[in-house]
């Protein structure tokens, strides 16, 4: 397994490696718990799992500052956790409780947190790209050295808003990182059936946006590529980073997966980003089995606490239904 790892990225020290492992395992175990809770009807609506893609959010967000912004898609539990949102507030949101990060008004697809500048899961494919460009424009106009990262899937590349946003960001030299999570399927339609040019990173050239592609299953490769991309964006220039990844689970909870073979899924699972990373760290004596066990133990508690928080949460009174359609006070 370790042979698949790109070992030319600098080795992390023990603390960093442990932290990275923690983030990936948290995302994985949190979502496994979500599946259980979905089956138990505690969570409803559409729910899209990130399992298999953990290295992308973990590696990219590791390179961000706390006041950098994220605009994400409906498959955003991983990004939200990696950005530092509490697992409890996310779980409570999926329960529909008022203690949820959006008071139960968004659910799984619409996690929001102003404090960590998590500007939402957007469930309109491509819809978040212009928003990210605007956040970057505001930063540029106010001379703030902040970065906005816009996560989107390869399916969004077919939307006009991808092209419009790339063009505008390049034209106005805006500090936005276009982060394409290429998991090969737009819901159930393969990339080769939707794009005339399947090499997404190449599309940057059409807009004079510097771009790169990276193995999205290789945490250190993602992290290294993201470091370069974020440094570029910090200088007020857009960047397109394509992370080639794979989701191990179905598109959502209502997907019979008729469009891909079990063999393909099995092959990709051999490149599980958590296993790849841990085995490499173990081989390099950066992490030990004891570290993994300790991380699992910590994460299990965090997930249990999140569920307990959600279970103990309350329902917003129906009399509050029409709150927040318009602002209740003037903006500070």
């Amino acid at each position, binding site marked *: 397994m370790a042979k698949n790892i790109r070992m030319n990225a600098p080795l992390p020290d023990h603390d960093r490696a442990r932290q990275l492992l923690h983030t990936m395992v948290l995302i994985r175990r949190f979502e496994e718990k979500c599946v259980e809770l979905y089956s138990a009807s505690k969570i409803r609506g559409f729910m899209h799992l990130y399992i298999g893609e953990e290295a992308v959010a973990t590696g990219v967000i590791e390179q961000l500052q706390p006041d950098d912004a994220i605009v994400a898609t409906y498959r955003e539990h991983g990004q939200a956790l990696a950005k530092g949102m509490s697992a409890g507030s996310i779980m409570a949101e999926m329960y529909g409780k008022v203690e949820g990060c959006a008071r139960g008004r968004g659910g799984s697809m619409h996690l929001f947190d102003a404090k960590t500048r998590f500007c939402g899961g957007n469930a309109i494919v491509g819809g978040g790209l*212009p928003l990210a460009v605007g956040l970057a424009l505001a930063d540029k106009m106010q001379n703030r050295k902040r970065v906005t990262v816009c996560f989107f899937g390869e399916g969004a590349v077919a939307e006009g808003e991808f092209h419009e946003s790339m063009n505008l960001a390049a034209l106005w030299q805006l500090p936005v990182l276009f982060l394409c999570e290429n998991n090969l399927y737009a819901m159930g339609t393969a990339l080769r059936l939707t794009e005339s040019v399947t090499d997404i990173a190449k599309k940057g050239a059409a807009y004079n946006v510097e771009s790169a592609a990276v193995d999205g299953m290789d945490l250190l490769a993602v992290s290294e590529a993201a470091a370069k991309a974020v440094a570029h964006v910090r200088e007020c220039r857009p960047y397109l980073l394509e992370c080639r990844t794979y989701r191990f689970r179905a598109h959502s909870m209502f997907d019979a997966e008729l469009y891909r073979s079990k063999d393909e899924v099995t092959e990709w699972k051999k490149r599980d980003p958590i296993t790849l990373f841990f085995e490499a760290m173990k081989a390099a004596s950066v992490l030990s089995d004891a570290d993994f066990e300790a991380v699992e133990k910590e994460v299990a508690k965090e997930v249990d606490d999140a569920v307990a928080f959600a279970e103990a949460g309350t329902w917003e009174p129906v009399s509050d239904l029409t709150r927040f359609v318009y602002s209740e006070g003037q903006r500070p």
Partner: protein
Amino acid sequence: MTFRDAVREGIRDAMRKDARVFLMGEDVGHYGGCFAVSKGLLAEFGPGRIRDTPLMESAFVGAGIGAALGGMKPIVEIMTCNFSLLALDQIMNTAATLLHMSGGQFNVPLVIRMATGGGKQLAAQHSHSLEGWYAHIPGIKVLTPATLEDGYGMLTSALNDPDPVLIFENQTLYNMEGEALVNPGAVDIAKARVRREGKDVSIFTYGASLNKSLDAAATLEKEGISVEVVDLRVLRPLDDATIMASVAKTHRVLIVDEGWRSGGISAEISARIMEQAFYELDKPVTRVCSAEVPMPYAKHLETAALPQVESIIAAIKQLVPDHG
């Protein structure tokens, strides 16, 4: 001073007072605005604040939403409301939903201006009145200025508003002359306004149809019919109180709307009158709306498709047959 000048002065004064305000849209800078509203602003404020955008309604409206979230106060100009449909996803799925969907965390202080309405022989892709459609959407406010004071003041008030505000400027109003504004400022963007008092019948209208309704009322006065003309001004939220007070006064209602009749704002106003003031009515509510056709180019057909002074007068005479 024209209505166009009033809107321009509103933009200019707002930009002078608040560095967060900027204008973006197609041809707002070097061209001076499709309807010359922003003429001269590029020279005063420069390309950093008067931003010519590529032709990408969805992206520049979305960028306006993002910039608003990022602490700016964008004014986004969309050439005509027909083109706004290319940005409808951003307006409806994002601008109108973010505050609620985020549980109150992310408000969007965005102003979108667009030209609306027919009457200039621009045919079926530049002439429609979609403000009534937009008024269907919770989370945004819909303003329809019809006077110089509102042309200036509604923009000012919209910029002070913490939530997305859409301003529909009827393109036939841009050349409308009026008294120069003295100490112009913010206006309320919650209330309808009685523009002419009357006792026999109430007209509820807005935008370019306001002047047609006032002309009709002046003509009818000579025939002994006293018409009250209420300028709705704000289509969302509707000012039910002012509407119902006028109904209680005149007991007869004509709604004049450049939008289509089916499912339009006129239908909504009529329904609210049924719900809230049915027993005040002496006659069924009547409407003069645009004909249910895509707007034709030929002058005589376009004229026939739109509410006109004559059709308003005819409708009033049907409502008040014992007068005159």
